């Protein structure tokens, strides 16, 4: 297992390297002088000269990369020329919102998907299975960004939950009730998108697992159906579910951006879209880098969990 995880980790380090080169190179892809890109059009020649020296912009590009990487490693992502605060602090205040929305949405999605998939799989083609099958297929065939818009509109208009605006956001530590109230709608929309995938993946794997001989064997021990489902069928069926979750959470970060923009919640997505509109390049770069590294980290975490759930994977 250790060997397997080390191998995976090495691969991920490679991926992070490629991402970092890509993020770094963004600056040179944009038209114009890098200093202008970073400082904005209103920058004085003096400020530009200082930046040139700081980032070694007159040096060859691969040396610039190492200067840049060194800064990143020390947590120095630069300063936003719009807000005049460090990019790191912008990310630090926005990231917890994304994390919270995603964690809540995943709890909701799993809490709904696991029991319903279990029930469906016990009676394939039963009433519940047919209803959920049709519903989930419909939801699955709508692109998530459209589904999200529809859900947000529907829920906020029908239920009177209104978009609150970025200033209305309260951190969890300050007032957790208000915080949860304001984040429950975005979390719910992301949960719906996730539920559909999780339900379908787990259901089909459960149905396959229930055909296995070891399930008949478990039955022949005289243990209850409930125990067979949870102790024998669930764990071997959850590998694909975890794999799906791993991929899905990455795309939820992006889907979350749409939700945040619609509901004016000041998470990473909202901040990113504002920064793009304002050409606040360093903030864009910082968020892109953060999200990429996060996706990689989430993948690694799920690799680890999958290994614990199914020890066969690292053994071959």
């Amino acid at each position: 297992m250790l060997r397997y995880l080390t191998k995976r980790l090495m691969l991920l380090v490679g991926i992070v390297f490629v991402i970092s080169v890509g993020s770094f190179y963004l600056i040179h892809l944009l038209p114009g002088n890098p200093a202008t890109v970073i400082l904005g059009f209103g920058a004085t020649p003096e400020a530009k000269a200082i930046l040139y020296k700081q980032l070694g912009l007159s040096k060859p590009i691969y040396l610039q990369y190492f200067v840049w990487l060194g800064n990143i490693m020390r947590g120095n992502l630069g300063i936003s020329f719009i807000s005049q605060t460090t990019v790191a602090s912008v990310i630090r205040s926005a990231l917890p919102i994304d994390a919270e929305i995603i964690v809540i949405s995943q709890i909701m999605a799993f809490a709904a998907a696991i029991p319903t998939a279990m029930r469906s799989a016990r009676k394939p083609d039963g009433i519940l299975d047919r209803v959920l099958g049709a519903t989930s297929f419909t939801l699955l065939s709508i692109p998530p960004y459209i589904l999200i818009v529809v859900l947000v509109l529907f829920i906020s208009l029908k239920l009177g939950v209104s978009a609150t605006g970025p200033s209305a956001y309260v951190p969890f530590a300050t007032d957790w009730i208000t915080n949860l109230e304001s984040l429950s709608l975005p979390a719910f929309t992301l949960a719906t998108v996730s539920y559909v995938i999780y339900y379908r993946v787990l259901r089909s794997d459960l149905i396959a697992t229930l055909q296995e001989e070891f399930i008949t064997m478990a039955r022949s021990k005289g243990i209850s159906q409930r125990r067979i489902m949870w102790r024998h069928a669930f764990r071997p069926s959850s590998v694909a579910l975890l794999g799906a979750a791993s991929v899905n959470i990455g795309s939820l970060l992006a889907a979350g951006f749409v939700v945040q923009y619609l509901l004016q919640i000041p998470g990473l997505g909202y901040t990113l879209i504002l920064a793009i509109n304002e050409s606040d390049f360093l903030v864009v770069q910082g968020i892109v880098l953060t999200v990429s590294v996060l996706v990689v980290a989430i993948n690694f975490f799920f690799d680890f969990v999958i290994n614990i759930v199914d020890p066969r994977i690292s053994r071959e």
Partner: protein
Amino acid sequence: MSDDKLLVVKDLTTTFATAGGDLAAVAGVSFDLERNETLGIVGESGSGKTVLSRTIMGLQPRVNTTVTGSSIIDGFEVVGASENEKRTIWGTEVAMVFQDPMTSLNPVMRIGKQIDEALRVRLGMNRKDAKARAIELLELVGIPSPVQRYNAYPGQLSGGMRQRVVIAIALACSPKLLMADEPTTGLDVTIQAQILNLLDELKERLEMSVILVTHDLGVVATRTSRIVVMYAGRIVETGTTRDVFYHHRMPYTRALLESSPKVSNKSHTRLITIPGRPPNLLNLSDGCSFAPRCKYATDQCHLVRPELQPSVEPGHSFACWNPLPVNAEATLP
């Protein structure tokens, strides 16, 4: 009366609803089993042995399956009992050793936990006692260093070891009847004898009855007292092991015997195979199912199905219109 019999099977029929119509995998099977007896059920692949052994204990698939007739294990009628009712006898009265130890163990559960489970759920043992008992069972079935093996996953054990684990699980709640469904088919030849000897030894020690299901007559020759020969879901001959081997009347039994290799054969002797293949159970004729492959078949065989009829020895019966003569040539693998 048959009160003292451990198992009484009467007219047992298992029908699967398939896309091509109803398929009777087991049709009208009747036999019984004494306490501490070992019975062999023999037949080719697809003859209904596995379905029969599962239906006897009520372990047939739960959907698209109809069972009629009767199967009484120690006074408990299995046919028609609900899953919850059957659970009360599974493990404690009757247990099964499955065919392929590669698929019959849960791959993501430590083997110790798979043995524990039955002990804790069915016998209400606590964690500690169950673990101690599980280790005892591992030792009983001949697994070296059982304390370490307790924490192993099935994938870390060889096929023979896994089958021993499967046997340990089956024995956990001391069943009176052990169904062994081709317990050695998935194993290396060198391991097969070990597992069969283990089953024999455990049967004596634990005073169980055993039903040994196999396609290999060599397996049942020395280990069973009686044999049931199956073809296309029906019993075609049954009697003591001796009668079936030496005085068989049904040509199919003869063909089966001839197709197993014998030690007394000269090297490079060609094995005699049974021509043709087992019939499609979806469209059986009204006659004898074996008739299309039988060299003795007459018109009557193709038109009317022969019922089981007694032979000269007590308890020996066969289903055939043109049986072999009473003093058929002895063949023993």
